[in-house]
């Protein structure tokens, strides 16, 4: 079976004042129909750039897709006509943003915004689109949807706004839903509601979800498979359970062990020392080497390649050599 979305060897560069930096390097991911792929990492690891690449929203310049391909149903999105990308955006791939307040238009009523999205991609009149908008609001669990459709975004709470965003995103039954940190701006009880809603919608609509998050807990509750990114590369990839229970890469282990989990009785948390290195200072070796307890001379000199090891693919010399 060919995957619904296949990112192959993607390389994205940015022009910055430090010269050209590589924001994504040899990124290969795939997403099957109806499943959720979680992409996890700290800020600066390239997970948002990955999401934007899939949407065809990398600002060019300063960004540039320097190599590789992104195939949706076999059609390559890299190098596709802007008009073609526009027609795919919203209908086949849709995005849910992190900040629902700034990603909704403040001067349009919520119902009208959804109706507009519907009319852009479907051949329906405005009355029918408005009715669809109310149905969608009902579908995402907004009480009194007909009244809320007439509200402006600022009249709704953060959770309700994110539901409106989701309603808009699923309005055209997209095949791929890109969710970029969809709950970071929300309270924890509301976050739980949004997670449950996304899982429910996936069951109903059958959409595949590309979930971008920094939170391993979110991965555990939402993802079927997971890709761990660091400094623009995928360092570990596999089934969510597999990666969570048998993390191989020292970075993945660190990410899991540094969570102050409820009930954990250790006095000190495991730390990952240092910070993500700036992209313009990446050398030839493994980008994680400066923070890694297992790094040796080879790690500093040569970039490890993602290769299948014991359970799933990992990019780490130490794992490969059996030193961990």
């Amino acid at each position: 079976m060919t995957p619904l979305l296949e990112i192959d060897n993607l390389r994205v560069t940015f022009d910055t004042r430090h010269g050209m930096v590589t924001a994504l390097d040899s990124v290969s991911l795939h997403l099957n129909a109806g499943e959720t792929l979680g992409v996890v990492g700290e800020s600066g690891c390239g997970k948002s750039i990955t999401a934007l690449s899939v949407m065809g929203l990398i600002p060019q310049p300063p960004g540039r897709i320097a190599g590789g391909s992104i195939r949706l149903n076999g059609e390559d999105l890299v190098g596709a006509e802007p008009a073609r990308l526009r027609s795919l955006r919203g209908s086949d791939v849709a995005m849910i943003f992190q900040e629902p307040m700034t990603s909704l238009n403040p001067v349009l009523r919520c119902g009208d915004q959804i109706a507009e999205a519907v009319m852009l991609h479907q051949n329906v009149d405005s009355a029918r689109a408005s009715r669809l908008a109310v149905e969608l609001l009902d579908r995402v669990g907004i009480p009194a949807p007909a009244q809320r459709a007439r509200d402006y975004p600022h009249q709704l709470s953060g959770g309700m706004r994110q539901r409106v965003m989701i309603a808009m995103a699923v309005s055209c039954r997209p095949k791929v839903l890109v969710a970029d940190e969809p709950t970071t701006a929300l309270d924890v009880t509301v976050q739980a509601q949004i997670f449950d809603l996304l899982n429910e919608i996936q069951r109903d609509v059958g959409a595949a979800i590309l979930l971008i998050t920094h939170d391993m807990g979110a991965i555990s509750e939402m993802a079927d498979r997971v890709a761990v990114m660091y400094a623009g590369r995928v360092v570990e990839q596999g089934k969510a359970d597999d990666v969570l229970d048998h993390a191989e890469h020292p970075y993945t282990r660190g990410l899991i062990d540094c969570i102050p989990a409820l009930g954990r009785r250790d006095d000190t948390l495991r730390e990952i020392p240092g910070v993500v290195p700036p992209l313009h200072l990446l050398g030839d070796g493994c980008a994680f080497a400066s923070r890694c307890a297992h790094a040796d001379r080879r790690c500093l000199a040569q970039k490890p390649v993602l290769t299948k090891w014991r359970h799933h693919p990992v990019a780490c010399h130490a794992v490969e050599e059996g030193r961990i």
Partner: protein
Amino acid sequence: MKQPTAETAPAAAGDPATAQRVESPAREAWRMFSRNVPALLGVFLLALVLLATLYGKLFYGGDPFEIVWAPYEPPLTTPSVPLGTDYLGRDIVAGLLTGGAPTLTVGASAALITMVIGISLGSLAGYYGGWVDNLLMRITEFFQVLPALLFAMVLVTLFSPSLWTIAIAIGVVSWPQTARLTRAEFLRIKELEYVTAARAIGARNRRIIWKVILPNAAPPLIVSATLTIGVAVLFEAGLSFLGLGDPNVMSWGLMIGANRDYMLDAWWPVTFPGLAIFVTVFAVSLIGDGLNDALNPKLRGR
């Protein structure tokens, strides 16, 4: 939406390993400014104007009020009056070199007065809020709705035209903008946590206003001050043109004002002082824009 470049920016800006160079925000601003070609052109032009105004007389003597030649002598015809003479036969070059000082002095003093009044009232209003803010903002609005030129004209006619009354008149009519800008900056900055941090370590209001908020509010104020100089120069020229300048002091505005009736017969007596004013204001605007780019952190890194 998250700016895609934001993922790369913080790492680039805050890398601890390479941050050995001690670069203060002011220094960084200077580095930005010194790479800005239009701004440097502005500095060059303004320097030229200032040098000519300050030292021009040493090389080119002559009383600008003295009648030295026949009236309406066109430029580039007589070596002793290179840019010609005006309707009375006075030397235009002498006028240009002498007339800059009063114009620039009035411009700079008016800008200074504007900043002092505007920053004082704006910072008090923004910091204390409540009734202080209400009262000060109503006063500001009162001055803002006055027709500035008319009001300045009234002030100047009431208190006999001298450089000082003109500067004060311009300052009094143009401070409200600065006050509003200062207030807006104070309202924004006083909510930031480092201000709360200063309160938490027991700093008094006066210290917070002067040492914490004002330096951080300075960038837009510096830009605004620069642009105010340009506006004040134009204002002075306008008043002089209307015959409200100090008639005993030669200024660019006065030159234009005195010769305006004969403009159709002789273009040069008004054009050269006009050009001088244009170059000055243009240079100041370029510097202001350059400062804006250099001091505005949002534009950094481009």
